[in-house]
């Protein structure tokens, strides 16, 4: 730009930015109430503006639960090996989209280049780690019981059904995959609610899901304030479990109280700082377990 010459207010090429929508039943949809929220950036560029994100309402949550319920039976009845392959594919897609994800982490979450690269690597590796569990957790957690009578007696874990996930509000990508993977790998379907710090990453993750052969309705992703959805999720009679990350003591109490209506399985998780989320102790077989039921089957043996 030559000195003294004024910069043109019209750029040479106008970008075509992505509309950030909700992801319900395998489709990107606008929020039912037509509301959006401004998603800010910690950086000064573009006046701190990154994108407008969809502001999910109770109605969007209800649609997502319906989609998740429909998807549950077929997903749970897929072979464990097949579910495992689909989670591996999700890991592949995260790694493949590394450049876009890193850029998103830098602009929306204000990560350094190094931090963004690490976040994406851990997210891919974590999906890879959980993918392998899909056809193994059952052998580790269940098995044959040698009862004192001539019977075959086996206890196997089964998925609960529809699980409402309130993902981390601190770890934009690793926190998200760490919340979703252990829920869906066993055959549960999920309605995931994502609030900050960088909800555009939730849309990036929805795009990963969309190209990973995850059947429609297995993972549904909503963005917006958690407090709008939490009471409805807790009281919804067609939700079987809730995974709640972080939050206040009051929120946890309200959730546990309202969820007694249909005895939802509620599990409260910590939500540490972004760096701590990347540690190996934030992935565990015992994060799969809270969203399982145990079925014990008897059958006589004899000539």
């Amino acid at each position: 730009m030559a000195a003294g010459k004024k910069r043109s207010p019209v750029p040479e090429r106008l970008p075509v930015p992505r509309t950030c929508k909700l992801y319900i039943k395998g489709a990107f949809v606008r929020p039912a109430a037509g509301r959006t929220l401004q998603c800010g950036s910690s950086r000064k560029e573009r006046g701190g503006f990154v994108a407008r994100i969809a502001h999910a309402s109770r109605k969007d949550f209800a649609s997502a639960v319906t989609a998740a319920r429909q998807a549950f039976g077929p997903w749970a009845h897929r072979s464990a090996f097949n579910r495992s392959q689909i989670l591996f594919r999700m890991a592949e897609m995260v790694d493949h989209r590394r450049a876009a994800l890193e850029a998103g982490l830098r602009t929306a979450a204000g990560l350094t280049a190094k931090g963004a690269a690490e976040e994406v690597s851990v997210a891919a590796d974590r999906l890879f780690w959980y993918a392998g569990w899909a056809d193994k957790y059952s052998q580790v957690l269940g098995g044959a019981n040698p009862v004192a009578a001539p019977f075959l007696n086996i206890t196997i874990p089964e998925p609960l059904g529809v699980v409402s996930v309130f993902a981390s509000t601190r770890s934009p990508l690793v926190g998200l995959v760490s919340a979703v993977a252990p829920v869906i790998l066993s055959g549960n379907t999920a309605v995931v609610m994502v609030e900050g710090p960088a909800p555009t990453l939730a849309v990036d993750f929805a795009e990963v899901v969309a190209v990973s052969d995850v059947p429609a309705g297995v993972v549904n992703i909503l963005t917006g304030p958690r407090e709008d959805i939490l009471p409805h999720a807790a009281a919804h009679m067609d939700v079987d479990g809730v995974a709640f990350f972080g939050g206040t003591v009051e929120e946890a109490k309200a959730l546990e109280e309202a969820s007694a209506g249909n005895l939802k399985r509620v599990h409260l998780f910590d939500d540490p700082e972004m760096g701590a989320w990347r540690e190996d102790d934030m992935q565990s077989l015992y994060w799969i377990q809270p969203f399982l039921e145990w079925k014990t089957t008897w059958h006589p043996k004899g000539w």
Partner: protein
Amino acid sequence: MDSSEASGPELLFGHLWDYSPAAESPDSVAVADRYGHFINGKFVEGENHFPCVNPATGETLFEAASADRKMVNRAVKAARIAYERHWQGLRPVERGKYLYRIGRLIQERAGELSLLETLDSGRPIRESRSFGLPLVAAHFLHHAGWADKIEYAFPGKTASSLGVVAGVVPGDFPLLRAAWKIAPALAAGNTVVLKASEAAPLVVMGLAGIFEEANLPPGVVNILNGAEETGRILTTHRDADLVAFTGSAESGKQVRRSLAGTGKRLTLELGSKGIHILFEDAALDQAVDAVAAGVFPGSRLLVQESILASVVQKLKVRMATLRVGDPLDANTDVGPLSSREHLDRTGALVEAACDEGATLHQADCALPERGYYFRPAFVTEVAQASPVAREEIPGPVLTLLTFRTPAEAVARANNTCHGLTAGIWSNKGSRVLEVADQLRAGVVWGNTVDRFDPLSPFGGYRESGSGREGGLHGIRSCLEVR
């Protein structure tokens, strides 16, 4: 098809083959006039006594105290002190040896305990002696071995005890339910305060006597008597670390609400109406016999339409040979209901179903003059939405429903918010396995019914509870796994 043809010739017993009375003498056990509580290793006197009735006679058998807040505090404090001073730090193998000793004593005193259970709950002596008591002893013996092996139970994790367990048990199989709460809790290193059921506290006080005889350190297990209010005080006690509750779905939800936000652990075993699916290729005589013996109390039998006439006929024949009467008689199949309230409720549900157009098939046997007896019955032509098809019936009433295809059977069985037990009767292995896969229930019995074992996890899906009792999955509820 003519129904008598369907089931073949029928054996007419008449009164020719009547059994001679074979009643156990109730005098061989001592029943006190009044029972208090068992706290800190001692039987203590209580207040606010209420009468406990022998359901076979309707007469008051003894009186039991109701623990108030002060008494509950005393018991929880004893359990806390025992946890900190004696039990938590005890070498795990020593804990195991106490459990083993308790199991052995139960075996040795099984006759006495089964009499106490039958006197108080009305369950036929044959069941309490040959089914209940062996399971109770086995439960303690099995968990004796767990006490020193917990470090191997959860790969990659460390498990530790929780503290004080507050348990509440119902009057249905009171001793077995008490064993389910106490044995895993002790093996895991916890101490216990258990509230016995107001409907059948006698045998649980008998169990307290076993703890005393076993020299279990004082306060490790404390037993309180009382009704709902005592249960509420205990389950909401601030010094209880785990609440283990068995009871109705409604009261279970109430317990869960009261614990919201406290961070306390909770396991629930709540009721549910079991369902048993009878396919046309099943071994019908075997199935009907098992159903008549085990399923009768308040279950649903889902029969494939093509065999309905035959099943109805076989059930009638089997029902006519069920022996109803004195629960202390070793030949009795069906004893009294546990209370007047249960009897009235059973009658009301059956009457309501008949008003809606259901057909009642009831045994025409003679009933004892006194006591809460109900003639075994089954109802057909019942609407799926009828209370008799949905609610738990406390009495010996079976509800027959029909289906055409396996998919319909599964859909009907799963069309409920509960899921504790289910049964499948079919001679086709692949069908049993497929249906077992699809049923949403915590325990599935294929070509059998009412089987229990200390290492077979028991517990429900959905609103039938959370957590399991028995085996590795049961003991996990009693531990903090980090």
